[in-house]
């Protein structure tokens, strides 16, 4: 006879072990470590909520101090590995296996831990891919999450940074796992219920509010003339002809420049209301001038951004907000919107090769991918048409028009030289060397070349949809690779021929005067200007207040 209840029984045993430290669901922060040692078992899969922005930092630090005789060999399954404590888990042997999406500030430390054998790497995922695996083969035994406030029944209010929490809790709570939440405060009544209390087992009031990383604030003062030129080319050469209304922007300065050009250059091109109306986007402060100028109809957010809460609260026509008035973000749903309901992704990368494959992974740094592989991929399950999607499909295909499916526009926006004058165009991605060194079955590629439709640099736009052979593709990419070795090794005749066909377009082909590529064209030239546009509602964090 099979016993079909083992997971429920296991859960019960753990709850009894944890119950010694709890009054109802409440646990004192001085008992956090003891609670975690009681409810987690060696080799468990643990999701220690580290989202793109919000971090369960108190729980992370307590877990990192656990007795290694009691806790070891954990398999960490979380989207963001961002805090030093996340790496301490591996250094101390509490955790040994890792499946993740994004590491940002810990990208160098993760690389070192991999080489020293402290981390066995499963895979680097895109967000919804990891979320999907939470429901398939990476279901957490224990989830350690973060929220703004809780009541005594465990109902959680996440505030604007809901992010991954509903997804993590769904996978853990409904598969007999244990959910532990750190909150900033215990209240009698939460402002809104983001997570129902019957999915939460323990609540701990943390000694200090959880950490949120301001990831999406780009200071307009740092936007360069080159980025403005690239933004003008993108608006004129891609947004306008394809009429892209539904889109996602990456987090780089290039796309920040485009956001700041919408109310000025975009307006002069007559594009208002015709492009960039619906967004899957984190609340970028640099989009405030476009919102205030009436360009934007709607934005759904993956997470929030430090300082933007008051502004979004005052703009519920634009943002998704709860009954309490504050933003409701949700990374899983917003990534779905990016996959199925956006006609364009435009973002930057560290390296791109001759066929348009791109990666941010080098042997020294493993920053992960975040949402880019998802946003920057054509959704083959998509079945609803739009003009821009169909136009891209027609350009990229020679099949009979009746059966031509559409294509998502996937645009890589990059300057030909990056940090420390390192060329961004390369013959071979550094991630190929990394995969060899680590004996990985799969080379980490952020966006595959066959998904990329356009490459935009300061030298021009390469439309890869119009290329028909790998040779054409290579020359189109070389043709915008500037003075990098890759660019200088171009076949000039072939590139000129591609230019005649409109595959390669220069600023002058698009009617752009380089004299206009000037900071005066930006709708805001400083963070202070952004505050002004918002009527004082945007409250930037201290490090961006330079006035």
């Amino acid at each position, binding site marked *: 006879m099979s016993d079909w209840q083992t997971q429920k029984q296991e859960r019960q045993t753990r709850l009894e072990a944890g119950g010694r430290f709890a009054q109802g669901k409440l646990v004192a922060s001085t008992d956090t470590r003891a609670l975690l040692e009681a409810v987690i078992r060696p080799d468990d899969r643990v999701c220690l909520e580290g989202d793109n922005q919000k971090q369960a930092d108190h729980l992370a630090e307590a877990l990192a101090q656990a007795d290694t005789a009691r806790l070891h060999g954990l398999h960490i399954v979380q989207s963001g590995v961002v805090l030093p404590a996340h790496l301490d888990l591996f250094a101390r042997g509490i955790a040994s296996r890792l499946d993740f999406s994004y590491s940002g500030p810990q990208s160098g430390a993760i690389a070192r831990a991999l080489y020293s054998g402290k981390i066995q790497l499963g895979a680097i995922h895109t967000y919804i891919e990891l979320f999907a695996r939470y429901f398939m083969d990476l279901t957490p035994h224990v989830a350690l999450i973060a929220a703004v406030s809780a009541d005594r029944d465990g109902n959680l209010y996440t505030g604007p940074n809901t992010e991954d929490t509903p997804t993590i809790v769904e996978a853990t709570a409904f598969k007999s796992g244990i959910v532990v939440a750190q909150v900033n405060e215990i209240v009698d009544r939460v402002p809104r219920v983001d997570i129902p209390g019957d999915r939460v087992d323990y609540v701990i009031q943390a000694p200090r509010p959880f950490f949120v990383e301001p990831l999406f604030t780009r200071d307009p003062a740092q936007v360069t003339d*080159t980025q403005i030129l690239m933004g003008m080319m993108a608006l004129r050469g891609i947004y306008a002809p394809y009429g892209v209304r539904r889109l996602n922007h990456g987090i780089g300065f290039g796309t920040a420049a485009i956001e700041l050009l919408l109310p000025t250059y975009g307006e002069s091109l007559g594009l208002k209301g015709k492009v960039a109306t619906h967004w899957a986007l984190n609340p970028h402060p640099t989009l405030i001038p476009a919102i205030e100028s009436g360009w934007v109809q709607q934005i759904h957010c993956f997470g929030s951004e430090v300082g933007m809460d008051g502004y979004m609260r005052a703009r519920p026509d634009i943002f998704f907000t709860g009954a309490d008035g504050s933003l409701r973000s949700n990374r899983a749903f917003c990534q779905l919107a990016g996959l199925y309901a956006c006609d364009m992704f435009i973002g930057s990368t560290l390296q791109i090769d001759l066929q348009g494959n791109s990666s941010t992974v080098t042997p020294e740094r493993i920053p992960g991918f975040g949402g880019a592989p998802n946003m920057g991929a054509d959704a083959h399950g998509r079945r609803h048409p739009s003009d821009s999607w169909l136009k891209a499909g027609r350009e990229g295909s020679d099949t009979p028009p009746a059966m031509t499916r559409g294509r998502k526009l996937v645009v890589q926006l990059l300057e030909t030289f990056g940090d420390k004058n390192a060329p961004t165009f390369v013959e071979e991605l550094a991630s190929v060397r990394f995969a060899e060194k680590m004996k990985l079955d799969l080379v980490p590629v952020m966006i595959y070349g066959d998904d990329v439709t356009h490459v935009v640099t*300061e030298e021009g736009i390469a439309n890869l949809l119009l290329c028909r052979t790998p040779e054409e593709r290579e020359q189109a990419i070389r043709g915008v690779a500037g*003075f990098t070795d890759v660019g200088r090794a171009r076949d000039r005749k072939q590139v000129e021929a591609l230019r005649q066909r409109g595959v390669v377009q220069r600023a002058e082909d698009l009617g752009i005067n380089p004299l206009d590529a000037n900071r005066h064209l930006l709708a805001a030239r400083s963070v202070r200007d952004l505050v002004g546009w918002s009527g004082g509602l945007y409250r930037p964090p201290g490090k961006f207040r330079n006035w």
Partner: protein
Amino acid sequence: METLQIHQDAPRRAGGEKPSAITGVVASGNLEVLLERVLPGARCEVNVRTPIGGFDAVWRAVVADFIERQSPGGLRISVNDGGARPDTVSLRLAQGVRLMEATE
């Protein structure tokens, strides 16, 4: 400080009549470009002063490409570099030629 002088004939004489123009600033990652309409016909001369050595080949490629694309015939161009990347150099040179096209 490295210096580099490049002579090359442009496809055509630069447009406009302005005798001189200046654009950009000498700052980290930026550069200053002075253009003077002092040479006969389609002759062009570019003088580069840069604090960073070892990039002669890239400078020559950037300048050759600029002369071919922007046709600055008749101009003597002096570049005061502050360690700018090639893309910034190209943009400033192109902007300089456009400034010269303005009628006085």
